């Protein structure tokens, strides 16, 4: 088998709980060594997907293929997949060392190898000093590391992490995010990480799969999702954005032309463009808008009046009124100095057609 075959292939997987459709025909490939994040609001089916991969739930329809082998009906103990649980699920009656050795013992390793492997993983995660402690005697961050060590020890092909940072405070969280990312890089393992925190997803992942209501909304790199959202849901869920509702006019080369309150604007349509005359929504990020004294040469230029400013430290959020009568507004991030100089006079606002994405509803 070459490295080209995906490590995991989820093929048309649906999961129903009674009348609830938790997953709706999900298809997804995960490559070896990838850090994939599953991102979505509560109840969108993230944990369900993880639990299907771990073997704790069976899909209603569809197949799960791991390393070329159909594992859809395989119980968890047979799979080369380990999970870091949201509540860590450390065994309270076992020491840190015993927790970490548990999976190794069950693999049938001999005593000496178990010792070697658990020492290795404990020093890798800087847990050496805690081997004889019980989970109740550890801090939240230490417990999190033990859970990670326990899941990594048996050398799984795929590591599943279900919101493992949810229980940590904001500061520790940021630190552990960096740690996790670097552990993933050093072990070169495939991490499948679940979160509903878009910032966390953006900082950690090679690839983000945005889920909504049991379906994939968009699948791409963090930059892709941020600057080229395919749907309104993604644009709104990740970061802050300007949503421009207008009418489809036609094509101009690669660009899509739209009408927005009498202004002709150009954007691109990653998810395909609707027919002429259809209502459409486009998204442009706040930091993509630039201020100009005269009409700029950018693909899009409109005139507007400053109606509000919010100082945010290094930058400033500026609210602009473009079309008073119909209430067409824009919001821009500019550096604090530029923000201070703009006054009551109308200014030109410009942005590239590449930075505006026409969205799927």
């Amino acid at each position: 088998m070459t490295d080209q075959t995906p490590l995991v292939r989820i093929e048309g997987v649906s999961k129903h709980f009674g009348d609830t459709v938790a997953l709706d025909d999900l298809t997804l490939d995960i490559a070896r060594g990838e850090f994939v994040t599953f991102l979505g609001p509560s109840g969108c089916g993230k944990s369900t997907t993880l639990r299907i991969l771990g073997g704790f739930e069976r899909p209603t329809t569809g197949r799960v293929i791991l390393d070329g082998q159909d594992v859809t009906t395989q119980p968890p103990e047979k799979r080369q997949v380990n999970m870091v649980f949201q509540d860590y699920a450390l065994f309270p009656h076992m020491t840190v060392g015993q927790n970490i050795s548990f999976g190794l013992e069950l693999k049938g390793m001999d005593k000496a190898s178990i010792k070697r492997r658990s020492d290795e993983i404990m020093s890798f995660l800087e847990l050496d000093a805690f081997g004889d402690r019980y989970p109740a005697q550890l801090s939240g961050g230490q417990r999190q590391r033990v859970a990670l060590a326990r899941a990594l020890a048996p050398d799984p092909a795929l590591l599943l992490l279900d919101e493992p940072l949810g229980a940590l405070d904001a500061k520790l969280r940021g630190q552990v995010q960096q740690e996790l990312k670097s552990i993933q890089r050093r072990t070169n393992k495939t991490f499948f990480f679940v979160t509903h925190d878009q910032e966390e997803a953006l900082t950690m992942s090679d690839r983000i799969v945005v889920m909504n209501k049991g379906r994939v909304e968009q699948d791409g790199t963090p930059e892709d999702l941020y600057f080229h959202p395919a749907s309104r849901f993604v644009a709104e869920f990740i970061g802050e954005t300007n949503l421009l509702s207008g009418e489809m006019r036609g094509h101009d080369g690669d660009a899509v032309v739209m009408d927005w309150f009498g202004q002709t604007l150009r954007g691109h349509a990653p998810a395909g463009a609707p027919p002429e005359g259809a209502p459409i929504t486009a998204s442009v990020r706040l930091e993509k808008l630039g201020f100009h004294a005269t009409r700029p040469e950018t693909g899009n230029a409109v005139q507007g009046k400053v109606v509000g400013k919010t100082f945010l430290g290094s930058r400033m959020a500026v609210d602009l009124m473009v079309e008073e009568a119909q209430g067409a507004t824009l919001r821009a991030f500019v550096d604090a100095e530029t923000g201070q100089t703009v006054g009551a006079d109308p200014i030109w606002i410009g942005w590239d057609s590449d930075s505006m994405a026409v969205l799927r509803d």
Partner: protein
Amino acid sequence: MNRGNRILLSCVYWAFVLYVFVPLILMILMGFKDSKFIGFPIKSWTLDWYTGVFADAEILSTLGYSAAIAVLATLISVAVGTWIAVLLEGRKFWGRTAIFGMTVLPALVPGIISAIAFRIYARYLGIEPGMGAIVWAHAVHNVPFVVLVVMARLSTLPKSQLEAARDLGADPIIAFLRITLPYLVPAILGASIFCLLLSFDDFVRSFFLGGYEPTLPVLIFAKLKSGMSPEINAIATVALVLTAAIGIWAERFTRRMNKDTKA
């Protein structure tokens, strides 16, 4: 709470304490009286009744007999009760409510009724009165307590614990033995002690199902019939100290274990 209420409340409390403990204290005192007749005044004290109890082969063998019955009945009810609890807890299946109801029923049936029922049934099955019959009746009577205590503990075991064990390669049986069972130990110990005491203390079932050999409560009853004597007080005090000590130790022990293993 105002002052008057507080005083009233503490009066009620102390009245209750007296009500509970005075009979016990009187009973213990009389066991040290140097006279054959129970009652005040106590003119002189003695330990003779106690030395008598520990020298009396019949009493000692009865004590051993009662203890053996208690241990056997406890082992059976703990095994059966734990098994039923694991079967019932957190699962939905057809007939679950019926099984649960039948399981706890023996705890609710009045002792005398269940004793008579056992007697009739034993006779019907051809089981001789004696140790086997008593153990059987005690075990059935104790199962509900084990089931309730173990189920309560089991319901606090996070589901992720077993999933984590399975995830790390344990099949359902290994997961049960290495995760569930250790988690249940405090509950099982607590239930065992409770069963031991229930069984040791039982009179009605032992009386109806016993053969020629009496258990301790049955022996005390027999001695009472032939007249009160401080000897009975001494026996009762020994039994009281024994059971109270076991009970208090078990309570503290299980509480400590519960604390240690909290996730």
